[in-house]
């Protein structure tokens, strides 16, 4: 029952990342050069990536595999999220290499904590029982608490850290209470079955055997409490209130990481839990998620209109986009035919990748645009079209993408999501989503107008971007446009990944 070599192979990506994080932190004792830190971190991520690709091949040949006595399930769905998390972490680290100057002398600790959190997110995507979900969720969360409070000269980051710590702890409490109900109701922690043949939650509930001591109501209560717990991580209304504060107060790269990698893994685990473990129960999760989706995107978009701080606005935009993604979750939990489910899941996976590209581009552009002045007001973006052409262009493309205007990946992603909703009979939800997209155009385009059509108030000198910053901007903008023109490739990968969950 111990750990076998096979277990270690199946967890190799996370293992490599953890080792990488430790090496990065230790390297800080020897040298404080940020180039060294960055190179070591990227090396760790490259090894992680290589292992994940090897696993993808392996899973392709042999099917999904479980490891560590069924604590972990390595399927293409999990691997897709792992690619996304590793890629996001790499981009965030490259983009923040200049920014990290202000973390001195703790630049290597900053990098190490990002890698630790990424390892937690990767585990989360592959977690197959409730305990593993909880522990890896906390591994993903706690480093971010420290990261949010990392800037020592100002008070806002510390407030962001306090807020994130307290609210994530509250959400963990809800999550655990929900898990306790689920455990009590089903008598098992297993979300996904594995080689040992231990009963899963779905099986325990489906059989309705006398071994299952509690009834449907306990499952209902457990699922709702767990949804509340996940709701914090997803920035879902009514648990969204921390998002703008933390995005605004935390260092910009941390906000970028939180908005993309964290969100992707959280959506992955929600899909897995509600599709695989609770999918068989008679409760109507689809209606619940549809209602939450509608409320979340509407509130996110409406409050975003009145914002004057760019990072805060991106926080509300993140809430709105959690709403769009929940459309996909609602479509999937409607449980139509398997092909429909696969289409729904793949639309969520596709949008997660596209959303990551757009949000990263926006945050990276904000890093460049605010680097010198530190002024994050939308007003301060006036004239940036001339002062920082590349960053302004990237922000414009990202914002158009977030609005959902073709030919960006945002348009294709929303198309797939709304399509999935319509196929699941949630036409009204697709309509609400479309109306919301139109509303969101108001504030997204407002920023673009400020950047290009208004003259700068004071300083009109060009804002230079470092090579690392320019590189990440080019990569993300290219991703937004390429995936917008040719979505087929990524969609195919997402379909394959989704089939891992369905079959």
């Amino acid at each position, binding site marked *: 029952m111990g750990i076998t070599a096979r277990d270690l192979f199946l967890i190799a990506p996370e293992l490599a990342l953890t080792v990488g994080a430790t090496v990065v932190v230790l390297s800080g004792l020897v040298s404080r050069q940020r180039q060294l830190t960055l190179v070591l971190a990227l090396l760790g991520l490259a090894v992680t990536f290589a292992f994940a690709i090897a696993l993808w091949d392996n899973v392709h040949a042999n099917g999904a595999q479980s490891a560590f006595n069924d604590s972990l399930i390595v399927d293409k769905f999990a691997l897709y999220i792992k690619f996304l998390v590793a890629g996001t972490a790499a981009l965030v680290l490259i983009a923040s290499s200049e920014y990290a100057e202000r973390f001195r002398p703790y630049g290597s600790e900053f990098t190490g904590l990002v890698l630790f959190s990424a390892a937690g997110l990767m585990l989360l995507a592959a977690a197959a029982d409730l305990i593993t979900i909880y522990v890896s969720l906390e591994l993903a969360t706690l480093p971010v608490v420290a990261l949010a409070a990392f800037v020592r000269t100002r008070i806002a980051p510390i407030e962001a850290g*306090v807020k994130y710590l307290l609210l994530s702890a509250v959400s*963990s*409490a809800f999550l*655990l209470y929900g898990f*306790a109900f689920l455990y*009590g109701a089903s008598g098992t922690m297993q979300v996904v079955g594995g080689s040992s043949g231990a009963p899963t939650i779905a099986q325990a509930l489906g059989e309705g055997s006398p071994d299952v001591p509690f009834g449907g109501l306990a499952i209902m209560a457990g699922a709702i409490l767990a949804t509340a717990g996940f709701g914090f991580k997803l920035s879902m209304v009514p648990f969204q209130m921390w998002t703008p504060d933390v995005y605004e107060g935390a260092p910009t790269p941390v906000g970028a990481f939180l908005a993309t990698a964290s969100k992707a893994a959280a959506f992955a685990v929600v899909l897995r839990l509600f599709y695989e473990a609770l999918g068989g129960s008679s409760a109507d999760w689809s209606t619940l998620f549809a209602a939450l989706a509608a409320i979340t995107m509407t509130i996110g978009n409406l409050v975003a209109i009145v914002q004057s701080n760019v990072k805060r606005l991106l926080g509300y935009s993140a809430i709105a986009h959690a709403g769009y993604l929940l459309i996909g979750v609602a479509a999937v939990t409607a449980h139509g035919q398997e092909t429909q489910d696969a289409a729904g899941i793949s639309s969520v996976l596709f949008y997660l990748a596209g959303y990551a590209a757009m949000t990263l581009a926006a945050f990276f552009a904000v890093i460049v645009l605010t680097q010198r002045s530190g002024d994050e007001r939308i007003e301060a973006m006036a004239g940036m079209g001339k002062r920082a052409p590349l960053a302004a262009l990237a922000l414009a493309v990202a914002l158009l993408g977030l609005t959902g205007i073709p030919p960006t990946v945002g348009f294709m992603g929303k198309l797939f999501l709304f399509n999935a909703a319509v196929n699941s009979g949630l036409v009204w939800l697709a309509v609400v989503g479309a109306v919301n997209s139109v509303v969101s155009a108001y504030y997204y385009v407002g920023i673009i107008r400020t950047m290009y059509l208004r003259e700068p108030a004071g300083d009109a000198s060009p804002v230079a971007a470092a090579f690392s910053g320019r590189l990440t901007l080019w990569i993300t903008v290219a991703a937004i446009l390429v995936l917008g023109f040719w979505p087929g490739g990524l969609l195919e990968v997402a379909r394959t990944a989704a089939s891992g969950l369905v079959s």
Partner: protein
Amino acid sequence: MTLQLLHFQILSAAIFCIGLYGVLARRSAVLVLMSIELMLNAVNLQLVAFGAYSGFGTSTGQVIAVFVITIAAAEVGLALAIVMRLFRSRGGVNLDEIDVMRG
């Protein structure tokens, strides 16, 4: 009347809700943290009671409780680090100015 699982569960629910009330109603971040610890304790109580009453996996509930306690300790440690940070940068903590629920 014998003691049933019900009693432990209701006790757990009561503590959880007192904790939730504290989280929502208290301004001081330290108090919010204490209330969260109450909520986590309620969870542990529930898990342990399940283990005692049901035939299945007597100890599995306790295993989670062990993890909850471990992670709660790590959380409180981090919280103290942030409090000290605040203490140094302001020469005194007024955590109550951080209105946690303001959105």
